[in-house]
């Protein structure tokens, strides 16, 4: 009797369970939705764009999912599955090589008319093995700013800045001469490397990479000795090996020159600084250190095809992200320099953003992830660049010897990375 009762209960329980479970099963995302993933800044701003105009692709609803940070977005992208993955990711250009290699991103072909609306080097950033994986959205770059309360004349060479620092270090209580406030000691500091003679890769005048040549470590190492070290071969304090405290010190008036990012210009304007943006002046007057200009992209994923929304996602990329109207609408909220040429001349673009643009046009080079992420030389650019500053400015190692190691690493990475372009 008891067994019967138990069996009945078992049947009832399972029946209830199945019915309840099935009734709760979520319906898969409708195939008429295009799912876009973005970080904590871009997500809400894109949502505003979509709220104002939702018909970027006729018959489709654009759904924006915002993540709490750029890192959280990256982690979600790494863990995405066919079912949960987005159709489009607003991501960094250096996600392209690994995303494409792993089959997470899908290529897109643009018409000549759409291509003409962007700088060719921006497509370089979002390409892997000759295929384009997204639309350039906003430009990330850095530029040097100087404090006009301290420095009255614009520096024309690296030496000008060092001379000023040495002359005023004690009198004005300077904590450093030049520091990197935005972009870190690898990406943000490339302008300083380049100003002293070390470029991650050299470009020809036609905009292609010069594979036959790399930087001269003796010239660079000796420039470091001349400008950044004292007679005891220790750091002279002009250029700190770390970006810690740089922004605060510059804002406090204890550092006269700083490399800042174009995403944070408003902080400096709010403190009364003039946007006298310029590239880092080179060792020879009239030359400048080349700074990376990269783009964030709206990247097409391979999940879109699995969701049955690939054509729609491609249409959204073209209609919203690659159009003047779309980029203007987005940058009205996001306030970064847009990548699209029509949007660049729009009135929504601030003078500060234009200042970054002119600095980039004077001394900018494309950020080529295939070279910079490559670690065939023993370390990637991202790891080796800050390691050089630490080795020379903190550990007191020989600037020329370390420069030779750096040159060897970068050269190997560029040659090896060539296959990924």
């Amino acid at each position, binding site marked *: 009797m008891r067994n019967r009762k138990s069996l009945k209960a*078992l049947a009832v329980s399972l029946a209830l369970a199945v*019915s309840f*479970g099935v009734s709760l099963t979520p319906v898969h995302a409708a*195939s008429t939705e295009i799912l876009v993933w973005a970080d904590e800044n871009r997500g809400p701003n894109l949502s505003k764009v979509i709220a104002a105009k939702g018909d970027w692709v006729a018959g489709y609803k654009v759904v924006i999912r915002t993540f709490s940070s750029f890192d959280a977005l990256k982690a979600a992208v790494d863990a995405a599955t066919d079912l949960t993955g987005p159709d489009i990711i607003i991501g960094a250009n250096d996600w392209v090589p690994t995303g494409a290699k792993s089959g997470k991103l899908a290529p897109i072909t643009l018409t000549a008319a759409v291509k003409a609306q962007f700088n060719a080097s921006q497509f370089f950033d979002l390409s892997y093995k000759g295929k384009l994986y997204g639309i350039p959205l906003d430009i990330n770059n850095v530029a040097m700013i100087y404090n006009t309360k301290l420095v009255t004349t614009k520096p024309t060479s690296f030496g000008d800045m060092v001379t000023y620092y040495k002359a005023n270090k004690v009198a004005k209580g300077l904590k450093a001469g030049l520091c990197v406030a935005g972009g870190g000691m690898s990406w943000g500091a490339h302008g300083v490397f380049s100003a002293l003679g070390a470029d991650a890769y050299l470009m020809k005048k036609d905009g292609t990479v010069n594979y036959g040549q790399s930087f001269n470590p003796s010239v660079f190492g000796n420039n470091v000795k001349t400008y950044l070290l004292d007679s005891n071969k220790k750091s002279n304090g002009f250029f700190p090996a770390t970006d810690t405290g740089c922004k605060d010190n510059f804002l406090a008036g204890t550092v006269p020159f700083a490399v800042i990012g174009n995403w944070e210009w408003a902080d400096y304007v709010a403190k009364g600084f003039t946007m006298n943006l310029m590239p880092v002046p080179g060792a020879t007057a009239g030359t400048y250190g080349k700074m990376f200009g990269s783009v964030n992209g709206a990247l097409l994923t391979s999940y879109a095809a699995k969701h049955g929304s*690939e054509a729609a996602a491609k249409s959204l990329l073209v209609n919203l992200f690659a159009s003047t109207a779309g980029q203007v609408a987005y940058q009205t909220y996001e306030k970064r320099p847009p990548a699209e040429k029509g949007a660049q001349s729009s009135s929504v673009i601030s003078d500060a953003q234009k200042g970054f643009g002119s600095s980039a046009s004077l001394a900018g080079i494309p950020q080529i992830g295939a070279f910079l992420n490559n670690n065939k030389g023993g370390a990637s650019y991202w790891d080796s660049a800050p390691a*050089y500053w630490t080795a020379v400015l903190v550990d007191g190692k020989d600037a020329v010897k370390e420069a030779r190691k750096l040159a060897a690493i970068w050269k190997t990475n560029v040659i090896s990375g060539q296959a990924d372009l």
Partner: protein
Amino acid sequence: MVAFFRGKLAFTLKVILLSIISALLILLALSAFGQKQYVIGIFIILVVFGANFTYLTKVSIPLKFFYPGLIFLLGFVVAPIVFTLTMSTYNYKTGNYIGKTEAITQIQKLAIEPDASGSTFDIIVGKYNGSESAILASDTVKKQYFIATYKERFDLNAADLKLNQYQVATQAPNFTALADSELAGADKLLSTSRFFYTSEYFVALEGFDVGALYRQKLNFLSERDAFQNISTGAIYEDNGKGNYANLDLPTEILEPGWRAPIWFENYSKLFLDPKVREPLIRVFIWTIVFAVSSVLTSFAFGLLLALALNKPIRGRRIYRSILILPYAMPSVMSILIWGGMFNTEFGAINQLLGTNIAWFQSVTFARVAVIVVNLWLGFPYFYLVSSGALQAIPSELNEAAAIDGATPRQIFSKITLPLLLRILSPLLIASFAFNFNNFNLIYLLTGGGPKSTLDGDIAGATDILISYTYQIAFGSFTQDLGLASAISVVIFLLVASISLYGIRKSKVLESFV
């Protein structure tokens, strides 16, 4: 009350509760099946059946109590170990994440190339003669117009078409455009469609309004499980490591690859690949030094304080409370604060000492800093357990020894310490195992550094095995999860062996081991 728990109402409530739990689990199982995680899905279904069987029958009363614990043990301890063990035998890294079937699909999709001039067309998707899927294509520069179905192309004259302001054809004879609602439903089909252009080239959609001209570059030879380059004839075969590789040039592989079993290759790399082996040995030695030093210093300091405060002194309670504070504070916060205190330029430690030490740039200082911070985090625990253990040692033993003429030092070394060690051995071993895998401290304090990157160092001077493993798995653009899993398995075996040895040696838990 007893009647309530045994009556019909109780039984009904049990059935309802089980149903709800089962329903939620079935929901999870369905989600797992939806994501093609069949093992997880089947496991959850088995858990549901097991739960209903356990709680609705009287097959085993003890099982009713053990069942949740058993399930959590299986799901969150055994399963991750099995998964890690399995993945350690796979080529599972950047470029080799997906399954083979998916990889073949993606290679086929990527194996197309545009024509030399990168031709694109404005298109309208629709039907030809009312039934056949087709596109109405316009090349506004060359003034070329055509309708293409899957099998044919029909060139059109502009005069026969209705053109919009951009000279794009919007209407053509025998062609009916699809409505927006129809387009949305046909996305999956349209995205994979290839509309005829020539015998070599086809038009594929790049959105609903644009088509591009492509030709196939690689053919999949299913009977041979290989790809062939149509123009060069090169054959790409499964290399047994998760990639199709060129037979004549094995380093040339097609991307993406897939997760493929490579059996013990990840393990052999640990011993045979000098790039992995050499840093691993250095890291292993430092891990042992770090774990032993951390346990010894924390235990010694904790015991010292416990001995000092074991005697009645004024304000003992206040001292005890203060000593427990580092333990009460979240360790993440403590580590970050210590990190700031060790900062070369602004840190409190350099300012107090009047030095300018680059704590995290020097190998020796960084290691000292790591052990000091771990001492701060660890001594309150040992103070607490030592205090408890000291009170458990009968005072008569000390008194008897004192009467026999033993000095306080002799009493401590011959009586108190051996007894303490006997009581605390399991805790010391557990602490060693914990510090062996103390990822948070290393990651937050030094990030594993300092590291001579320019000299080719892969591991940092303070990297311990677990932080080194993390770096291999997630620390760079090329993630090698298979190799990281192999190192994790080795760590697991090491910690398990050392712990087991320690437990056996100390003769505690004899009835369990």
